[in-house]
């Protein structure tokens, strides 16, 4: 069954086949075996689906959006309240963005817990970690675009995080904002990043990520991959299941459920719009988007350690965490994948996740009034 081929006998398919000769390519792409033990929970695929939704809705939104401080707010308001289905397109874009981050996070957790980032899949993980960074960048740059009070002030305090980086913080802040403050320059910058730089980066990284996944196949979470020269465990026969159409169909079902979820969220809780951005009026509850709350809150609660100020510690921890995230397969030398054979890694991960959860919750509770005045 693994060698099953899709027949292209006659008619239109035959006509195209003669002119494109794609059958072999499709066979190579689709007919890949998956270990029967593999459990992906379709998380990566869902993230991919949400990205495609973002590309579609984002392209539509860009047809009406005007990236200048004078017009941005009004154009978003126009899209949301005047253009037919504008509310739907914008709300789906809004919710799919949040969903993308959530499912990406779940995907990372799944990969980590199953230990499938180890030999020979280190590069898949590295590309994945970079994809994570790009996705966060999407969220961060997109959040400013409506140019309302929430967007403006979340960006103000969000970019403020960058200023905490030792030595280059101030320059980094200016680089992000395109000047000392959040202004029209910031809006232009964020728009360009959001619709050009990041999509291209994401597409390239995604291509690399998926190519290597395709080349190596989906991992078996029960057993480590045998190294060259190493004999496979005797008496064990790897059983396989087909990727197409079985797995693909399951994935599509998951996508359909997600689509329904997006429609429900968009209808019940559509993307809102606060008052237009005003640099002179600080609203009472300024805080960054939820996925920045952990870092934002960390900056406030960590103590100074030795020669490092609390601010240094607060920013060095997430920076270090990002480095660890990207280089994890090279730091974690344990070849085992079974959960009980890697307790330290799992406990550390659990502590980090719970810690981030608590910080996020805490950051969401306390209205952060003072705009990083410290």
């Amino acid at each position, binding site marked *: *069954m693994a060698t099953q081929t899709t027949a292209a006998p006659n008619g239109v398919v035959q006509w195209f086949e003669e002119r494109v000769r794609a059958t072999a390519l499709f066979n190579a792409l689709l007919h890949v075996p998956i270990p029967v033990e593999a459990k992906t929970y379709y998380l990566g695929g869902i993230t991919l689906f949400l990205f495609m939704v973002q590309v579609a809705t984002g392209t539509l939104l860009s047809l009406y959006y005007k990236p200048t401080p004078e017009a941005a707010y009004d154009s978003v308001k126009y899209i949301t309240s005047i253009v037919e289905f504008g509310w739907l397109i914008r709300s789906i874009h809004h919710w799919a963005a949040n969903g993308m981050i959530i499912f990406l996070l779940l995907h990372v957790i799944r990969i980590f817990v199953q230990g499938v980032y180890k030999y020979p899949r280190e590069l898949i993980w590295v590309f994945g970690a970079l994809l994570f960074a790009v996705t966060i960048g999407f969220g961060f740059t997109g959040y400013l675009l409506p140019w309302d009070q929430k967007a403006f002030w979340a960006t103000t305090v969000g970019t403020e995080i960058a200023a905490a980086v030792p030595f280059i913080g101030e320059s980094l802040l200016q680089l992000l904002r395109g000047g000392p403050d959040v202004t029209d320059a910031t809006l232009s910058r964020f728009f360009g990043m959001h619709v050009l730089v990041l999509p291209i980066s994401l597409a390239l990284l995604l291509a690399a990520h998926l190519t290597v996944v395709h080349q190596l196949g989906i991992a078996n979470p029960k057993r480590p991959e045998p190294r060259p020269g190493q004999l496979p465990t005797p008496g064990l026969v790897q059983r396989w299941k*087909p990727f197409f*159409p*079985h797995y693909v*169909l399951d994935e599509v079902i998951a996508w359909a*459920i997600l689509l329904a979820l997006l429609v429900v969220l968009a*209808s019940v809780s559509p993307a809102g719009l606060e008052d237009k951005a005003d640099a002179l009026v600080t609203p009472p509850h300024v805080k960054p988007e939820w996925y920045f709350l952990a870092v934002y809150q960390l900056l406030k609660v960590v103590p100074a350690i030795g020669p490092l100020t609390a601010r240094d510690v607060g920013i060095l921890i997430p920076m270090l965490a990002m480095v660890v995230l990207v280089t994890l397969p090279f730091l974690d030398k344990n070849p085992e994948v079974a959960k009980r054979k890697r307790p330290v890694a799992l406990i550390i991960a659990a502590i980090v996740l719970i810690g981030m959860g608590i910080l996020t919750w805490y950051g969401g509770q306390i209205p952060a009034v003072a705009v990083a005045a410290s």
Partner: protein
Amino acid sequence: MKRSRTRVAFLDRAFRIGVLSACAAALALVVAQTVLAESPSPSAGASGAASGSPAASGKASSGPTLSGSPSASALATATPKPGATAPAKIDGNTCYSCHTQIGGAQHTIADQWQASIHGQNGIGCADCHGGDPTSDKITVSMDPTKGFKGVPSRQQTVGVCGTCHSDVERMRQYQIPTDQYAKYKTSVHGQKLLLSNDTKVAICTDCHGVHDVKKASDPTSKVYPLNVPALCSSCHSDQKYMDGYNIPTDQLEIYKTSVHGQALLVNKDMRAPNCASCHGSHDAQPPTSTTVVEVCGKCHTATQALYDQSRHAELVNGPKCWTCHGTHDVVKPSEARFFHPTPPQIDCGTCHNLADKTLKLNADRFQNDEDRRCDTCHHVDSLLYSQAQGIKSALDKASSAYDLALTRIAAAAEAGMIVADADVTVTQSKTSLIQARAAVHTTKLTEVAAKADAAVAKAKEAQDFADARLAESQNRRQAMIIVVALIAVTILALVLLRRGLDHTYQAG
């Protein structure tokens, strides 16, 4: 290699030149400073002497004039130049040099004077105390024949201050009024002091300070608007001190709770009235029922204009501002101000001559806030009561329509709808509502109703907008159910297809 060496040599030379020129510049600066420091000293002395002598002679002649009228000679000779002459005053002022040497309280007084607005503008000791400040002999400088009068009595003090401060020519350069003395004479304080010789009443120095007089615009001055309530209450809240005057001593406590007190003392809103805004300062007197409308109208111009159109304003002893709003205890007005919860039983004779039924008004002020209501005077069975009712119900209708619109808009916003476009109509409704409330002062139902109706109409418009948004939200949710159902069918089809595949797979 050679090139780099020449460059090094060049840099070295440049550095040396730089250091040398810096040294030269520093030297030049020191020399210049020394020269400059030496040259101004004599000239300052000269100018001090030049400006000091006429001032001194002015003082010599102004001494005797204190008891009399402000003299023309003083004007001609001793017109102090603000600031410029201040140091000269100290140089030529033997009072200052002696009294600072005595130390203690005398030193303090001298320092206070020097820092005061008088000291800074060259108004010297002798200007108030007389004597000859040019002589360093105590027998000369403090000789009563030279006009020395020591500490003026409280009655004298008012005259001492008034001598200069009522002099238009003298005060012109400072751009301050000159009517304080004249006003003081008309105040309750002044009357008691000058006619009954009551020295407990406030005189100039009690409010402005003695030697440490500050500008009224100085925020640390006791007469700065924010500080006035504390200043007045320093006597007026002192029960023992006020004993015998038969006036209350709780004004400040009451004022603190009022809208005026809150605005001034809590919000530091300088536009809010302090004691002096209503009672006057130098001419302090309680407002009377004939002046109160003007007093309140000084700020509440629009309200006064409306009140002036009212029937209340036409009546001789009719209700004034304070009849309904009180005095020190003014609170934020509301529709609750119209009626008692249960209408009081009013005796006809309270307002009417029982014989000929003509009006006999004596409503002026009510001690209790609960009595400041329409139905305290307008009997439940009267025609005017029903008119007041009409006015109230028009207002109630407008404010509930406005509130309803706000609730609907909030509900639409809660449903995630964008409601900013209702802002204009809501604001228009609010504008009319505020105007309707203000129009109550005209006591005319038609005036109030016109504004109230406009408020209702605009509120309705805003409410319709919000309702349309809510309906739209409902539509979306219904459409959502259909879409979700369709997706469910798709999922079902895919699941069935998947199951078929499993069959195939197992079979194969």
